[in-house]
């Protein structure tokens, strides 16, 4: 392309011939676009967890749509990851410990993967279900215990668009859990394998996107825009003896951007202004070896700088099989804190880091701090000091009382997490940002997943929000096909995209609000606020309906409102 346009430029050197040059390039470009290989209904740029899940749902439920997925890399095959050769024996090099790149999936998100993929993950031991969760704070006695009993089993599928009658195995699998942890690489590979089986989706990779032409960029194509579709041109590496790259162009009715927080599509098109709020935090994540098993429980302790979470990963059987010694198993740590502390954590020796993590996690309920600091109290007149002391004692006893009653009533006291005994592999750190695109769609383009929104990982909602996007978009595209409105004309597609955008923006903004509230509530060290927060946690723990509603929303079985 470069060479040819240089030639054209050399032929048209004078200004007078500039128009000829433009015309020549124009003709050349038209020629290139007329070499279009294929036209698709939906093209998804980004074949990660969210992009592949959309392709998977569409191939299962709206097979009449022609779908393409483009990605910069080719994921490893499932058998490569599991180290199983085609003859079935363990001749490969499977991982000996889990990767920290993993997701916490709600039961709703797991249901979108479907039973066949879940079975595969279970057989390989690469999925860790958890049925209870313990959340506690750094300076208070409150302990929040969630368990699968809080999930309203009758309302499991009320808000689902895609409950397949054939997938009856889903029900009994997902009924008694709060979620599961799955590594990114195997989840994506399983999805790609399932998609390939259907034969209706073209997986185009590895590619480097060169240009995207969409009607939303072009002011001239207002009105129906029926003729202007989206065209995507890319360079693709063709496997073979000699590494060979070809340039191709495809056209599509709908372009879906699923290429992550730094979405190339979103940035290139320039029609998606975003709002960002840097939390001023970084998260450090790594895989750890623990004494004993987590027994399907997830732990999270809130600190003023951010929570530290200890999550199950891989089944216990798999951990033993690959050589974790004795009773040890593996777990995943996600520690959110200030950038300074995060960088410190990255550099600490293994022994000291393990010590720090155990210090935090092994420490249980403590008393709330005094309402006012001693110095401040001493500066006040005696009657007021007495009143404040009295108030403090009242608050403390109420709080401790609430905690105790919560324990006796639900018989769920503080459970000490297993001790961490080793760090396996590398530590990773990443910035935590809140980002929200002001609009998720523009003519013929939709953003899904992190390309549209990112949140703090403290509530384990990041990927789950993306999966919610996937479900909603797939449902609206199915409606468009079933109503005969189709994706080729603008009217039908616009309606579908508008429905997607308005539904999802509501849910995402509400979830973000909730997480922001938690972030603020746990970040404060202002004593009266700490007392209030502790009491709040106790109330949530004891008040069944409130706690259950929280769980219903977090597990994805109920809309926020």
């Amino acid at each position, binding site marked *: 392309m470069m060479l040819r346009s240089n030639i054209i430029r050399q032929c048209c050197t004078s200004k007078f011939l500039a128009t000829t040059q433009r015309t020549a390039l124009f003709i050349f470009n038209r020629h290139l676009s007329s070499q279009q290989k294929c036209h698709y209904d939906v093209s998804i740029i980004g074949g990660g967890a969210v992009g592949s899940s959309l392709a998977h749902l569409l191939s299962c*439920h*709206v*097979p*009449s749509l022609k779908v393409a997925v483009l990605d910069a890399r080719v994921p490893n095959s499932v058998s490569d990851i599991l180290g199983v050769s085609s003859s079935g024996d363990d001749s490969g090099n499977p991982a000996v410990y889990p990767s920290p790149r993993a997701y916490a999936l709600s039961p709703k998100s797991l249901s979108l993967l479907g039973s066949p993929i879940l079975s595969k993950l279970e057989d390989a031991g690469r999925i860790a279900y958890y049925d209870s969760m313990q959340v506690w704070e750094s300076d208070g006695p409150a302990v929040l215990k969630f368990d699968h009993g809080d999930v309203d089993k009758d309302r499991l599928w009320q808000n689902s668009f895609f409950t397949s009658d054939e997938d009856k195995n889903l029900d009994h699998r997902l009924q008694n859990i709060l979620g599961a942890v799955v590594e990114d690489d195997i989840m994506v590979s399983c999805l790609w394998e399932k998609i390939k089986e259907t034969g*209706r989706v073209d997986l185009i990779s590895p590619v480097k996107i060169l240009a995207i032409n969409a009607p939303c960029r072009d002011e001239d194509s207002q009105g*129906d825009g*029926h*003729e202007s579709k989206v065209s995507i041109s890319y360079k693709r590496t063709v496997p073979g003896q000699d590494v060979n790259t070809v340039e191709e162009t495809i056209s599509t009715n709908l372009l879906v951007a699923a290429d992550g927080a730094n979405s190339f599509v979103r940035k290139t098109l320039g029609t998606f202004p975003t709002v960002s709020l840097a939390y001023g935090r970084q998260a450090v994540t790594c895989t750890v070896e623990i004494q004993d098993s987590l027994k399907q429980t997830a732990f999270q302790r809130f600190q003023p700088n951010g929570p530290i979470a200890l999550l199950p990963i891989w089944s216990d059987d798999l951990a033993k099989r690959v050589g974790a010694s004795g009773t040890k198993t593996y777990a995943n740590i996600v520690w959110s804190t200030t950038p300074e502390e995060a960088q410190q954590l990255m550099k600490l020796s293994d022994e000291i880091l393990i010590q720090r993590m155990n210090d935090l996690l092994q420490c249980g309920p403590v008393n709330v701090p005094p309402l006012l600091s001693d110095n401040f109290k001493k500066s006040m007149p005696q009657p007021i000091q007495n009143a404040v002391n009295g108030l403090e004692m009242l608050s403390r006893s109420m709080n401790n009382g609430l905690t105790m009653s919560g324990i006796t009533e639900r018989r769920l006291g503080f459970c000490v997490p297993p001790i961490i005994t080793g760090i396996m592999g590398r530590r990773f750190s990443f910035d935590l940002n809140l980002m929200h695109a002001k609009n998720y769609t523009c003519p013929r383009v939709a953003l899904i997943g992190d390309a549209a929104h990112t949140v703090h990982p403290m509530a384990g909602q990041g990927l789950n929000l993306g999966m919610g996007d996937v479900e909603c978009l797939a449902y609206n595209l*199915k*409606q*468009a*096909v*079933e*109503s*005969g*409105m*189709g994706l*080729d*004309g603008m*009217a039908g597609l616009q*309606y579908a995209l*508008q*429905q997607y955008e*308005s*539904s999802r923006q509501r849910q995402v903004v509400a979830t973000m609000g909730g997480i922001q509230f938690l972030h603020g509530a746990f970040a404060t060290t202002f004593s009266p606020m700490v007392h209030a927060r502790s009491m709040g946690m106790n109330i949530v723990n004891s008040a069944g309906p409130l706690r259950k509603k929280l769980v219903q929303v977090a597990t994805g079985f109920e809309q926020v409102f």
Partner: protein
Amino acid sequence: HNPLISMNPIRMSFITEQIGKQRSIKLQHDKTTFEPFKGLKALDVGCGGGLLSESLARLGASVTAVDPSKEVAKAAQIHSQRDVKTSSIEYKGGMSVEELASQEIYQSSFDIVCVLEVIEHATDPKSLMQSAVSLLKKPSQDGHGPGGMLFVSTINRTAKSFGIAIVGGEYVTGKLPIGTHDWNKFLAPKEVHEMVQDFGLGEVDKRGMILRPPFYDLKWYLDAQDFDVNWIGSYRHHQG
């Protein structure tokens, strides 16, 4: 922005459901197409911009579309030419449905006849209905052919519909130009039923079409009990 666009999905879902039930068609997504109306002939009375006609065509029906305005039908035809799935719609502009019914070739020939959002604008609703019914296929003597189905959707004549459709739709929100509707021409399901009964049809089913809050989302849904404002009904010849 055409307000009918947002109502189209539920109108189509009602039609698809009714036709599916009548002809025992399993509404499944095929590997390559979703065409439950394949092999059926459909008539869109008062097609306007062709929104309904194109939807019927994409679901596999062979569609004839009639509209009293020549220009409107011509514009719809140009639009439909752009997609191969809709390019074979037969548009008949500058023709009334009575005129179409007088042509022998069309009499009793359609499996689906749609009179959607039209009857409340007609100068002679009874004559329109009579012509529409005459274009509907009659059930075959041997009982194998189920006969055609007529779909009518309009707005009910109630205080609520005055408040919502006229005051709300035309004056408050301005979604519809003032004077679009004449409340006196609105028809209740019972009245339409009586009208078609005279021509030998019975009512099969009906639903109210309701706008779900938040209203600016323009999400409609079908309701089995509330016919106070918009509603849609299906009618067919009695068997035998």
